[in-house]
């Protein structure tokens, strides 16, 4: 018989065997993630919330994935503090909780997230906020490729992504709704690196502070003037950004950030691919 190694399910211990990794103090649970597999950590998180934890502090996180994903308890909102580096798909499908990462994050932060908030005090990898439909994500530094790809909005759900630094290519590709704010604070007067910004975009708004050339933008987006309302929106997000990261970002003041030029990108058409098909022409 061939043993098929299962990267996720192999060597998963029973809850009883890992219970010693949790410490409860009132409504706060502390988890030591040392040596826990993805599933074990998420098993414990779930138990903590079931037992009534409202705040969970996880120490020594090292690559464990899906933190916050298995916490679908309609109506419940939990605060999770992550120390270390969480693995891919942090807060995927999340629906209302708040996660603060004291360190860098990997790929897929807030993937298909529905509601809640993720704050990363560091940088994050690729596909941040992919298909995100609600809630807010704040990344202190840079993000990787395909950020906010296919982000969308629906009625009262309008997702927001704020990136303090810059991004790699394909920012906002296929974007169908929501807002992305790229502050470029890590740029030191260079231009943004990303190419193909907003390719295929058909909804939502991207605000960019710092230099970016026309050739870096996708064919489907246009640059429009910032209006009063845009400035108000951006300013309030910048204020939140500064508040969230005040301990680690000291060199930036609100005026200094707002003093620089912002551009606003919106889709040229809501139907970028509407005219390439032959609907039988006679009717």
């Amino acid at each position: 018989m061939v043993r098929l190694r299962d990267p996720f399910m192999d060597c998963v211990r029973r809850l009883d065997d890992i219970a010693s990794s949790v410490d409860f103090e009132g409504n706060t649970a502390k988890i030591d993630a040392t040596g826990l597999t993805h599933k074990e950590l998420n098993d414990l998180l779930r138990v903590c919330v079931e037992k009534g934890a409202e705040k969970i502090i996880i120490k020594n996180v090292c690559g464990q994935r899906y933190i916050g994903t298995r916490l679908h308890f309609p109506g419940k909102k939990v605060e999770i503090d992550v120390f270390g580096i969480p693995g891919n798909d942090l807060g995927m499908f999340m629906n209302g909780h708040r996660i603060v990462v004291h360190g860098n994050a990997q790929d897929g932060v807030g993937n298909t997230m529905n509601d809640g908030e993720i704050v990363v005090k560091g940088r994050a990898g690729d596909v941040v906020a992919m298909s995100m439909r609600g809630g807010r994500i704040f990344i202190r530094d840079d993000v990787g490729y395909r950020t906010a790809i296919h982000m969308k909005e629906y009625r009262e759900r309008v997702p927001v992504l704020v990136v303090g630094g810059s991004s790699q290519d394909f920012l906002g590709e296929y974007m169908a709704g929501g807002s992305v704010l790229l502050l470029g604070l890590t740029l030191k007067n260079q231009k943004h690196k990303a190419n193909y910004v907003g390719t295929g975009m058909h909804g939502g708004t991207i605000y960019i502070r710092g230099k970016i050339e026309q050739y870096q933008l996708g064919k489907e987006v246009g640059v429009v003037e910032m209006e009063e309302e845009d400035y108000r929106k951006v300013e309030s997000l910048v204020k939140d950004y500064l508040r969230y990261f005040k301990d680690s970002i000291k060199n930036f003041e609100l005026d200094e950030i707002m003093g620089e030029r912002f551009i606003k990108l919106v889709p040229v058409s809501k139907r970028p691919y509407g005219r390439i098909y032959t609907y039988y022409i006679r009717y």
Partner: protein
Amino acid sequence: MAMKSHLLPEFIVERDNERCDSCKVCIKQCPFGVHYYDEEKDRVYSREELCVGCQRCVVYCPKNALKVIPYPKHYRPNDYWNESYIRDIKKQAESGGIILTSCGSARRTKIYWDHILLNASQVTNPSIDPLREPMELRTFLGRKPDALEIDLENMEIKTELHPNLMIEAPILFAGMSYGAISYNAFKSLAMAAKKFGTLFNTGEGGMPKDMREEFKDCTIVQCASGRFGVDPEYLNYSAAIEIKIGQGAKPGIGGHLPGEKVTAEISSTRMIPEGTDALSPAPHHDIYSIEDLSMLIYALKEATNYEKPVCVKIAAVHNVAAIASGMVRAGADIIAIDGFRGGTGATPKIMREHVGIPVELALAAVDQRLREEGIRNKCSVIVGGGIRCAADVVKAIALGADAVYIGTAALIALGCTMCQHCHTGKCAWGICTQDPELSKRLNPKVGAERAYNLLRAWSLEIKDVLGGMGINAIESLRGNRDHLRGIGLEEWELKVLGIKGAGE
């Protein structure tokens, strides 16, 4: 400059004026505006160049006065430059666009089902009469353990089992989204699945809120590249989750539900604003490798507390066996393979007709490969893409499938006549349309009854065939290729299918 269209009509509408009493039913029934009433002459006429041959008016004419028949061979007969190519070139010369079509491949590619014959018992082993003896079609889908440990004292299974789905016959309704099909068609299938004891599949358009509670145990919810309507509630109101990587009618490309079809109801089910295009990217942008697929499989398991099997659906393409092996290794509990004849609500014709391989060959190759690698028990295999009758189901099971998906056949049961105009959104049978006037032509209760009857009829036929083979459980037929023989096939084809030729 206005261009005169060079296209010829595809159908002739023949009206028997002896029978026609100008009741105008046909005018009301035809969504394509073919029939019209001339007041002066007090007669109904037709503009046959608009007719798509859906046969709605023929069925509903109370006087049986109508005949819709193919237009006689248009051009000089030519096997190479046949009418279809000439017509397409003319269409493109007039429009400059990609030709859009729907349903499954209509080309004359070899149909392997028709080159496979089934076995029956004679003399050396008795056949079984399903009318008198129990016949088991019940099927379990999902990952099976490598071995079973049994506590003999209490007669209990000690091995921890993976979540499995139980269905009463190895037939499920394939993913067809609310958006591609009407609410009434969608609901018809859900009701039929529930009544029969099988599953229906939401496709990639989400699940209407008002149906969630009632149908949660017979729903496979799809998570596709557009992630439309995918949130934790949707994922948890389900029997299983299917990651859609590809579909047989359009392997490798995304989908595009035009804004006109995104009505208020569709918008709330897909969770996108009304009237915006719903673009499904070609790939999932978080899946660029088998490792990434694994990541999404486990993300979905996490989101549903490891309570549901996760299925991964791909189109049958050239390296399907190797891909399937990767999918199983990535953690898929069920793999679904959609052959190149699989249907769709809209696809570029070039994809429908030229991309992908027949599901018969893909299935045989996948089953073989998974067995060779010793991992066949790790997943169930569902195949779809052109399953037309109970015999196709039996052949698929004997080739190694655990169950089949039916899409086109289910829609035909509801009323579809394969006119291949779903992409126009004007389905005369109320199936592939969001026009409330048209969709109300299909009453979900009646639709459910038709779809249920089809499942029942096929189940009875499958039992008959099994009995004839001397088998009393579908389980014993699974992968039992000894019961198949090929006819009119070449050596390599027999080899891929893993069957002998007839007479061998």
